[in-house]
């Protein structure tokens, strides 16, 4: 590359990075601003202002931030564990025997394309009758449902990479099918399981539609709390930014350290980034 080409390259690159990063940084700037610095028209105050932790104090004092945060952790962790068990078994079956000749795999993946509200209507009525509305258990079940298809498809790709000869060799050594799965296949697919687990955690962490429809107070995840700051009467920008700053931090860290796997995960394993 010529020097001129290099300059153009970096000007464009830095501009694009600015467009991407500035709004995210903006959340963190707003989180540390006093109300009169948030509601200002002075362009300098966008970046230069007096740091204050007032928003965080208000968030913790006046709103049930930590209980809601704990709900999010419990629901996403519990649903991820169950999803991994169900989808690892299924994905192995699909990858090794092509069970159902692709039709079943298509049915599985199509749940991911289901409009969320289609499942929401019947389950809302059912949950109301069973008393499952606003319970962590109820919401966890729904998260299991919407993550399983994704996890199955992603793991399918990882299982496919394991050579079948390895299993045949183990069978000659007298391993049963269950032993092969437990002792040969599972250890090999562990990195794939880790990647899948992280993605399930993130999807569940970010999920909004079901959380918003099926919880009110006790089981409310933190995304729903943050959305409630943007009301039709008043808008609590300060606590909203403070809450958002905490909630998105884990996902930003994960995105940074998983950068090699993000594209692979998002394309269901089709593109090895």
């Amino acid at each position, binding site marked *: 590359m010529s020097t001129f080409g290099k300059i153009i390259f970096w000007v464009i690159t830095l501009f694009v990075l600015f467009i991407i990063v500035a709004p995210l940084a903006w959340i963190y700037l707003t989180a540390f601003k006093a109300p009169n610095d948030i509601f200002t028209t002075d362009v300098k105050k966008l970046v230069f202002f007096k740091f204050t932790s007032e928003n965080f104090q208000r968030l913790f004092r006046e709103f049930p931030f930590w209980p809601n945060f704990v709900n999010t952790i419990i629901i996403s962790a519990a649903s991820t564990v169950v999803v991994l068990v169900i989808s690892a078994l299924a994905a192995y079956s699909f990858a090794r025997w092509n069970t159902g000749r692709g039709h079943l795999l298509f049915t599985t993946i199509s749940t991911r394309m289901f*409009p969320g509200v289609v499942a929401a209507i019947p389950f809302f009525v059912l949950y109301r009758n069973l008393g499952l509305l606003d319970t962590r258990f109820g919401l966890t079940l729904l998260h299991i*449902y919407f993550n399983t298809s994704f996890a199955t498809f992603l793991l399918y790709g990882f299982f496919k990479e394991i050579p079948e000869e390895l299993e045949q060799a183990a069978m000659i050594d007298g391993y049963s099918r269950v032993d092969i799965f437990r002792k040969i296949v599972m250890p090999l697919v562990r990195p794939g399981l880790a990647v899948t687990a992280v993605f399930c955690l993130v999807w569940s962490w970010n999920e909004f539609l079901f959380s918003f429809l099926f919880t009110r107070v006790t089981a409310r995840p933190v995304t729903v709390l943050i959305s409630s700051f943007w009301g039709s009467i008043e808008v609590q920008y300060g606590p909203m930014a403070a809450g*958002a700053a905490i909630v998105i931090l884990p996902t930003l860290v994960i995105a940074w350290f998983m950068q090699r796997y993000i594209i692979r995960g998002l394309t269901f394993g089709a593109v090895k980034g």
Partner: protein
Amino acid sequence: MKEAMTYEAAGYRLTRKPTIWETLTSERYFKWTLLIPLIVLLGIFMIYPLLYCAYYSFHQWGMRGNALYVGAQNYRQLLNDKAFLEALYRTFKVLVICIVSELLIGLGLALLWSREFRGENVVRGLALLPLLVAPLILSLLWNFMFEYDFGAVNIVLQSLGLNKIYWWSPERALYSICFITIWQWFPFATFVLVAGLRSLPKDVFEAARVDGASSWYTFRRLTLPMLSPLIMIVIVLRTMWLIRLFDPLYGTTRGGVQTELLDWIVYRTAFVYFDIGYGSTMATFSLVLTMAICAIMFRILMKALGGTK
């Protein structure tokens, strides 16, 4: 029973019947045993909602009292429902705008970033940051950034001597929502295409250069066709996600100022007006539509997957 017969036919004396565990893990049934949890789950969470919505789409019911059978009246109403048809139209508009913009921006940046350069990992790490952040939170963020008086975008515009823009006007709101979505997702298209460009065979391009092909010709005749499976993957996956766009609406206009999309109107009918009958009709319709699109898309996707492996 069947196994006992075959053992006997082979001349063995079977001393005992196989246990349930042995049957489940036998060579013949193990692949189905592995699928039991998934099939139970799909049965509950797919078949039940499907049947439920299909059933109530022929009824009038508002969550209280008994459902009243009304035949196909809900479907007739749906096809004449201006709000619903507009939501459908808007959904397709958002689909086209977002996918085309993401692909164009993505292709441009992919051509830029596909070479190896210093600081590559930092650039990629920063560019991929928005992808895993909750769409709801990003839409709340942009809602504030696009605020008329105190939003960062308008303050910056003003300091540059430009006019403030009312981003949430009925003419602009839908495009503002598209912008938020594109902003979050163009890095996805970019890095899918970067992966594609990096895996292209170098010798073909070398040969084209030796033959004196112009760079535009090489791009159009070699690069684009070779990238097409990856472009298809982006289109398919983005269609799947965009067709059910909901969170960015909740964080910004809440379906107001002419931004109502497919999922939102179903939500409003079923959960704001509690009209389960008509809501189920909409849900069934949008489900059939999505399934049809997805069946086509899935076929393309599997073909594209075969092409990249």
